[in-house]
């Protein structure tokens, strides 16, 4: 059984002229990093909200098809309770994801475990581990509201990591992060997958994820149209046809009119162009 299963899912936001998802079928397994990419409006963010059950429960709208998150339909209220603490969701803007009642970073990261009734010892241990993993242990006693966007985003990620979730849903998590933060997140995604969690990330950051993801699913107009290993897809021309992009080096290669397969990294580009 996959950690996430969407079968023929359609979703239309209330008052929207067109569906955001059309007959979308997607599977994401534990132990792997699944990367969703698509142009604006292609449906990657909606797919994550549907997977979390927040669409339609919070957003309203109509959903068709079958969604199974960790074996449960996340849109039903009883599943919401059953899935509590097992699914992590990270959105692009950190400030709005903060709890609003924490006076220190440590309290912020402890928010969800405390809500779940964990014993104090387990909470403190988990918080210390999560802060260390995101390299923000030195911020433990700071007020989250006074920190930079990048630091806040690390706190949000740590606040999810502490739960040791079975499924990660990340929507453009790196837009607020600096280079060091991105590197930490990529390492974290691999270690979470190694732990057995399913990591699903929607992102345009091809440079960062080319070497991190196990699978690349390209969305176009509300459904996946390409689904293969990232290096295979990114070297070819189909990603461009589908309205998505590739790594910077591949873009450069394409712009100079070279033939496929394209180089993906700086090393490959240098190797090819300085022959």
């Amino acid at each position, binding site marked *: 059984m996959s950690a996430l299963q969407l079968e023929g899912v359609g979703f239309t*936001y*209330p*008052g*929207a002229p067109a569906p955001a998802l059309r007959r979308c079928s997607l599977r994401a397994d534990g132990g792997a990093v699944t990367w969703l990419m698509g142009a604006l409006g292609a449906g990657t963010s909606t797919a994550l909200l549907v997977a979390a059950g927040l669409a339609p429960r*919070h*957003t*309203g*709208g109509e959903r068709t098809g079958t969604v199974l998150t960790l074996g449960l339909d996340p849109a039903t209220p009883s599943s919401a309770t059953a899935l509590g603490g097992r699914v992590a969701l990270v959105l692009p803007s950190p400030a709005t994801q903060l709890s*609003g009642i924490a006076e220190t970073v440590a309290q912020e990261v402890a928010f969800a475990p405390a809500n779940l009734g964990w014993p104090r010892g387990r909470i403190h241990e988990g918080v210390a581990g999560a802060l260390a993993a995101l390299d923000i242990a030195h911020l433990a006693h700071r007020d989250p509201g006074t920190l930079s966007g990048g630091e806040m985003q690390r706190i949000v990620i740590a606040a999810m990591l502490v739960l040791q979730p079975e499924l990660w849903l990340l929507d453009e998590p790196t837009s607020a992060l600096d280079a060091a933060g991105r590197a930490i997140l990529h390492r974290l995604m691999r270690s979470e997958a190694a732990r057995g969690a399913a990591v699903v990330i929607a992102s345009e950051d091809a440079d960062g994820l080319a070497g991190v993801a196990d699978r690349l699913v390209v969305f176009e107009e509300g459904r996946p149209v390409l689904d293969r290993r990232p290096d295979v897809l990114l070297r070819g021309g189909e990603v461009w046809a589908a309205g998505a992009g590739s790594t910077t080096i591949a873009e450069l290669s394409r712009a100079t009119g070279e033939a496929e397969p394209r180089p993906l990294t700086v090393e490959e580009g240098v190797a090819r162009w300085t022959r």
Partner: protein
Amino acid sequence: MNARLLALLPAAIAINLVIGGLVNALGLPLYLDSIGTILATVLAGPAVGVLAGAIGQLLFGLINGYQWIPFGLIQVVIALLAGLAASRAGFRGTGRSLAWGLLTGLVAGALSSVISYVLFKGVTATGTTAVVTVLRQLGWSLPAAVTASSLALDLVDKAVAFAVVGALVRSLPNRLIGRFPRAARAVGR
């Protein structure tokens, strides 16, 4: 209490207090401390509006003195009337919003003057108290002076508040209104 309400209520209450403070700082003879209550009602129903108004007034009292807490009853009344207005598409246009606001102002003003007189013998908000003092100088009795000043202020204040909330909700994109079905009904969509 579901997570959406947990996110909405603090914002609605903060809106009450902050816009009220802004109006105060601008030195305007208005309260505009019920915009959050009305907005919460339009978005999520009168029960939520009552909560926003009541808790907001409690916190206002905590910060500025318990003497303000009895006026929480007025916030409750505003939420109920805003709920009535919302259920009848009362925010469909500026005219309708103003009309419903005036009605609410009438009820709120009457209630406010009763509370003002019974509990404080006419002394609370510096603005109204100034009007009361002037009217007394002109020979009006204390109850009459308190009632008149309360009513006039509340009529204008609630009319403006309803108009502001109506204009805001009408200007929301479909996507955002869709998350709040009651709001769509309130503006007649």
